[in-house]
């Protein structure tokens, strides 16, 4: 990682975090009328994976997609406009938080139904093979997706066809509020997947450098073995499943200690890492300020932008 790369990665992580914090700050104004599944704690996974895969690689995600969207686009204008339901939003206000996409940057689809975009990614990878291309495709999904039949159907077909597809399991150990032990008849997703002709790797979701390293190594294995890959990344979901609050008080999980908070926060971890490499705190602060300005501007523009006109209701259905 050269210095420019380090700062770029820091900027992307910060952009995502500050965007999520801005949503938390303004959500109560009730201008963003869309259910938000915030990515605080999860940011490093898409940032790391997108850093390794070639630019423009087709990507698919879930309803917890803010980090993926911003990692690929860094476009907070279209992002906040969409959350505000405005015409200049990425989906003219028809997508909202749960269906963000940006085909021009490779992000083809995200879905509010668990596991739903996994076979779409298989189709995109099949299209690569069909055209004799080797551009990788990546699909991000939560650990709960491994309980859906379509995950196994998709994995089976991808392995049977040796598709160039990276499955990225973002494992926060929770399906809404249900812990893994209450849902799984197996001990480890990676272990369960190993019976397929598929490469696997694991990483700690709070460590961006480790995610980048694991993704690189896995991608090399995939290329060498002409096999799909599964990257399993554990992370800590700092907030409630949907909404802007913490929910440690309701009893289904323990509140982390201050030390745990620091250890499981990918932004704190990565800034410490950069400082230990000799980056100057002022360099990082400058980025923080610039990112805050960008987000403030985007929110102001989103608020003053127009809603889609009435005729937009019937537009965009048919080609």
């Amino acid at each position, binding site marked *: 990682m050269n210095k420019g790369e380090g700062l770029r990665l820091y900027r992307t992580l910060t952009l995502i975090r500050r965007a999520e914090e801005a949503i938390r700050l303004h959500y109560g104004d009730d201008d963003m009328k869309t259910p938000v599944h915030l990515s605080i704690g999860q940011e490093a996974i898409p940032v790391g994976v997108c850093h390794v895969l070639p630019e423009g690689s087709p990507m698919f995600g879930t309803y917890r997609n803010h980090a993926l969207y911003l990692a690929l686009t860094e476009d907070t204008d279209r992002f906040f406009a969409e959350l505000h339901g405005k015409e200049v939003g990425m989906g003219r*206000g028809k997508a909202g938080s749960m269906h963000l996409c940006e085909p021009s940057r490779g992000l083809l689809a995200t879905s509010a139904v668990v596991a739903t975009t996994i076979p779409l990614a298989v189709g*995109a990878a099949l299209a*690569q093979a069909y055209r004799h291309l080797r551009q990788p495709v990546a699909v991000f999904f939560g650990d709960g997706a491994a309980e859906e039949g*379509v995950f196994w159907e*998709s994995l089976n*077909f991808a392995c049977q066809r040796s598709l160039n597809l990276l499955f990225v399991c973002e494992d926060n150990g929770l399906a809404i509020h249900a812990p893994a032990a209450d849902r799984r008849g197996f001990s480890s997703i990676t272990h369960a997947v190993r019976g397929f002709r598929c490469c696997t790797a694991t990483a700690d979701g709070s460590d961006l450098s480790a995610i980048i390293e694991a993704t690189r190594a896995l991608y090399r294995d995939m290329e060498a073995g002409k096999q799909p890959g599964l990257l399993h990344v554990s992370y800590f979901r700092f907030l409630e499943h949907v909404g802007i609050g913490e929910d440690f008080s309701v009893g289904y999980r323990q509140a982390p200690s201050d030390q745990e908070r620091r250890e499981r926060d990918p932004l704190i971890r990565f800034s410490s890492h950069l400082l230990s490499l000799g980056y100057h705190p002022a360099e990082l602060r400058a980025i923080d300020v610039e990112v805050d300005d960008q987000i403030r501007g985007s929110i102001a523009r989103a608020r003053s932008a127009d809603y889609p006109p009435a005729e937009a209701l019937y537009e965009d259905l048919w*080609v």
Partner: protein
Amino acid sequence: MTETMTYREALAFAAAKEMDADPTVFVFGLDVPDHKRIFGSTKGLVEKFGSDRCFGTPLSEDAMTGVAIGAALSGLRPVHVHIRADFLLLGMNQIANVMSSLRYMSGGALRMPLVIRAVIGRGWGQGAQHSKSMHGLFGHFPGIKVSLPTSPQDAYSMLRAAIRDDNPVILLEHRWLYDIEGSVDEQYLPPLPGPVMVRQGTEVTVACTSWMTIEAMKAADVLARHGVRLEVIDIRTVAPLDETPVVSSVAKTGRCIIADYDWLYAGFSAELAARLAHRCFGLFKKPIERIGFAPVPCPTTRPLENLFYPSAVQIIRAVERLLDLDSIDLSQESFYSYEERFKGPF
């Protein structure tokens, strides 16, 4: 060039034409390249285009529907084939949650040019899970075109139109139609067509879907000998629906039978009846008659199955009610039966 061929041959011919014309077109699904070739409707494709463009899949309808969508999002034109429409229910999440709405949710940025072909089973004891059509169900979701080709020309032109269409299209093909022979003009390539009047008449309009068009034509033949002229309209595309040709016909006849190849409750026949009731209010001399499946799952045993399915006889009896005719003696008439149309086992 016009040639005589069966419906199944017309389907295979259309697919080959499109695959020839466009290298992004591929055909896949369970059993697509096996020795039976989906009742011959994918015959010759694997030999001509190879296993990259015509291939079988695992038993994973849910994922394979998603695969078709993902490939279409990536600029290919998949044709996903199912030997029974009932199997589409396994892919319903992809159909109803993704295929119908992804373009809309992207503000028009995405397009999904894909075709799902599925065979409606009938005859020889197919039972409750090999006999559904569900065109009303699929048509319920905005964003999906749903068509039921009836003639070999329809099979040819509509499959080609569906493949060329930039929107998702579901084509539902009745099993008994596969043996129908007719002339096919290979140059006739309209966009996915709507209703067509297949028989001109004056007394009663019969609006039909799929196999019911064949039954209505039979009923029209019988009734013509009794001096009654039916006007038969094959709806062909149920979504998006253009009911205007039926409205124009009702304006002439004042009487309408909707003969749908499905259950009546909350189905396509109810939709069409509602639209006609609105647009033809005051034109009707008698209430609309609806004909469809009996409101039970399809039974397997022959005597009950005969009662389950709508037929030419039911259409004739409905015409008698609409025209206040005495019951016509049908004992000397011969109607379609399995023995004429179907040899089993599937």
